[in-house]
Structures are given as C-alpha cells and as structure tokens.
C-alpha cells in the first residue's frame, strides 16, 4: 500500500505557493526533506493590474510513503535538538517568516540559526523579537529537558550584536575614565549585560556593575576607585 500525502496551497507567486505547501506538509511530517516532495503547478496565477484580475498561484504538493518514512528517519537527531528545531520552525512559520532553521551544538548549548527572508522582522527592534523567540523556546525546552539551553540566531545577528556591544562597552570605558564619572548604558538582557561585563573585566581603570530591575536592568561603567 502506498499512501500518498497531498496538500494544496496558494500564494502570490508559484514560489510562495510551494513554500506554503511545504509548511503544511512539515506540520504533518516534521523534518521532511524537500527532495521527497513532488510539486505540481495547477495555476501560475495572475499578478493583475492594481489588484484587478489577480488570481493566486496554486500548487499541489505530494509526498509518498517512502518520503514520509525518511522524514521520521531524519528525526533520529537527539530529542532536545529536534524539539528546538520544531519549536523555532513552528514559531517563525506562524509569524509568517519565510526561513529555514539549521541546528548546531556549541559550547554545551543548542544553536538554531534562521536564514531566509524577513529576518529583520524576526530580529525586531533592538533584537526584542528574536530574544522573545529564544526566551519562549528555552521556557518550553526547560519543561521537558531541564538544564539545556538554546540560542536562536538569525544570519549572524548574535555575532554582530556581540561585536557592537563590545565596541559600546569600550567607548563607555573611555568615557568613564575621561570624565571621571559613571556612564549608564541602555537596558539590556542578562546575556547582553554579561558580554559588556566580560569585555571590561580586564580593562584597567574601570569597573562595572548592573543596576535597576528587569526588564530595565542596565550596566553602569565607572572609574575604579
């Protein structure tokens, strides 16, 4: 018996319709390999003029029993990594962000890196959206596997943010020494504050501390006495 799984989807372009179909299939078979999916374009769609004559592109996607079996074969990755992959994939898809999620293991933590379109929306102002995704992912992960930690990243965002925080920390240190007074930084998450503290730990002439209460806790850089 060869049971096929079949879904139909629409989108503004054939590419978007295919992408939406893929998401629907992934909900049923997590970790499904795109190569195992056959797409059939039902309608190319019409862009229309000023919204007149617009018809969506329509595709039918099918996976056969074999492809489905492989999808479960791939989920022999460790449960914690599979859990984080599933969560981040589900959250980004639910937010309407088109991206793929790659998993890695780094310094004892799980790293989920998103790449694709709309990453600015995923990151959000000052990274508040991606930090929210990471916080919820960890809250849910902790419920089933306590002691594991996951980082959610988007196309090098965390590395860029760390570099800019380090630069900010050094400028604040120079400032504190020159003016001989305390310099207060913007409120940051605990992870970000730690980056600042570590950056200035071995810098002569300044010390750092944190003040305020979450979520408005911030780092203060001051000349050492």
């Amino acid at each position, binding site marked *: 018996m060869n049971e096929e799984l079949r879904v139909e989807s629409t989108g503004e372009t054939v590419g978007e319709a295919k992408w939406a179909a893929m998401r629907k299939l992934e909900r049923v078979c997590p970790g499904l390999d795109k190569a195992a999916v056959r797409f059939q374009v039902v309608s190319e769609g019409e862009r229309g003029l000023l919204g007149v004559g617009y018809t969506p592109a329509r595709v039918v996607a099918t996976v056969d029993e074999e492809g489905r079996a492989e999808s479960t074969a791939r989920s022999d990755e460790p449960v914690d990594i599979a859990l984080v992959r599933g969560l981040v994939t589900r959250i980004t898809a639910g937010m309407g*962000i088109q991206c793929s999620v790659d998993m890695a293991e780094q310094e004892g933590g799980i790293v989920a890196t998103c790449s694709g379109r709309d990453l600015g*929306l*995923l990151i959000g102002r000052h990274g508040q959206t991606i930090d929210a995704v990471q916080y919820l992912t960890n*809250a849910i992960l902790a419920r089933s596997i306590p002691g594991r930690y996951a980082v959610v990243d988007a196309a090098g965002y965390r590395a860029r943010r760390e570099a800019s925080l380090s630069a900010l920390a050094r400028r604040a240190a120079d400032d504190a020494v020159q003016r001989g007074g305390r310099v207060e930084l913007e409120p940051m998450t605990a992870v970000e504050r730690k980056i600042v503290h570590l950056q200035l730990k071995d810098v002569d002439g300044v010390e750092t501390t944190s003040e305020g209460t979450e979520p408005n806790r911030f780092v203060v850089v001051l000349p050492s006495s």
Partner: protein
Amino acid sequence: MAELLAYLARQLVDEPDAVRVEEVESEHLVVLRLHVAKDDVGKVIGRQGRIARALRAIVRAGGARDGRRLVLEIAD
C-alpha cells in the same frame, strides 16, 4: 497567529486542553484573548511577566507581517 499563540500556550501549561484563544476584532486592532486553566495563568505570565512579554513581542511582530495591530490579552 491565534493558532501559534494557542500552540505556544499549550506547551507552557499543565492543562493544554483548557487553552483557548479568542479573536476579538475592532476597528484598528485585533485582540487575541488567551484563556487557560485557572492554575495555569501564572505559567503563561511567567516570572516578572517575562513569558507574557515574550508572547506579546511575538504576537505583535506576527501581526506587523500583515500590517495588522495585534494585542495579546490574558483572560483571568
């Protein structure tokens, strides 16, 4: 978005069957009202409101994708 919110809430609570999201549309915004079992309210709010804040950020961003103003409300 309501579907994602319900999914996330179900992962956080002890009684996933009691999770329900009500969508209330008004002129300028859509309110997603999250209902959970009485004993689970704290779980979707979190320590110092952190879970609620994270859920709000995700709901807001998800709405912004389609140019809608989405607001999360936790029913008690």
